């Protein structure tokens, strides 16, 4: 893992913010990844094209970045498949039930000062921090 780099963190954050602003200014949509993916998965017909295009851009971004010398680092994943499947299920189910994830609530919603998004962000940050504390400092995993 690379060391803490505040400039890259801020710059990357600004690009995330810019993408969220552009999606709203251009096509009037909130850049919430779980909402975009959830809508793309829905059986109901309708506005699938922009969703699939956004997801294609997101998944294709590492290829474009590799061309300019910023390749994707291989993600360090949990060793246990049980943990991988359980965490994936919880992330998918929870984000849809809660109406959003780190992008929709954490960035777009917080930027709008939405009370729902502020509550959601505080709750998921707190529960995630508790889980990490338990995994790393209580069970010693």
């Amino acid at each position, binding site marked *: 893992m690379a060391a803490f780099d505040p400039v890259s963190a801020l710059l990357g*954050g600004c690009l995330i913010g*810019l993408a969220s602003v552009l999606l709203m200014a251009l096509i009037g949509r909130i850049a919430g*990844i779980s909402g975009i993916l959830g809508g793309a998965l829905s059986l109901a017909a309708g506005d699938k094209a922009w969703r699939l295009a956004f997801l294609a851009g997101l998944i294709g971004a590492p290829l474009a970045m590799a061309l300019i010398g910023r390749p994707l680092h291989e*993600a*360090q994943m949990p060793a246990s498949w049980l943990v991988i499947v359980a965490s994936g*299920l919880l992330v998918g189910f929870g984000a849809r039930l809660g109406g959003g994830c780190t992008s929709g609530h954490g960035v777009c919603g917080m930027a709008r000062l939405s009370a729902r998004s502020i509550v959601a962000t505080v709750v998921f940050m707190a529960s995630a921090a508790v889980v990490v504390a338990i995994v790393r400092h209580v069970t010693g995993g």
Partner: protein
Amino acid sequence: MQVLASLLCGLVFGAGLLISGMTQPAKVLGFLDVLGRWDPTLAFVMAGALAVSAAGFALARRRGAPLFAAQYLWPTRTDIDRPLVVGSLLFGVGWGLAGLCPGPALENLASLSPRVVGFVLAMIAGMVAEAWWRSRAPSAAANEDAAVAGSDG
């Protein structure tokens, strides 16, 4: 134009996640690990993203409508209800277990890592399960389209 604009936004969003380090679960978990060697990266990413989006959203609102669509679809709900809190709680547990949320998970698919693919398939299964669970709940008077439009993100 909508499709092109959206593709571009996805690319910029993905570039931001990658440059900021947020595609690496280790950095996310380092931020969430408040009792260990704390990594402030995610706070800086959020600060940058919030500064640009808060200012940009305010500017966008000055125009009556988006460039390539009829209207802005700002989320309208303001109530703090149980699904919001329970869903966010469950999401946080999953996020804390793997250090991956939906954006970085999808972006990491490019590495073709079997574990990432497994995580994304489980995440999709979780989303499908939530849609099914919502559709059979008695309060599901709103159809799925309304649920999509009414979601926060």
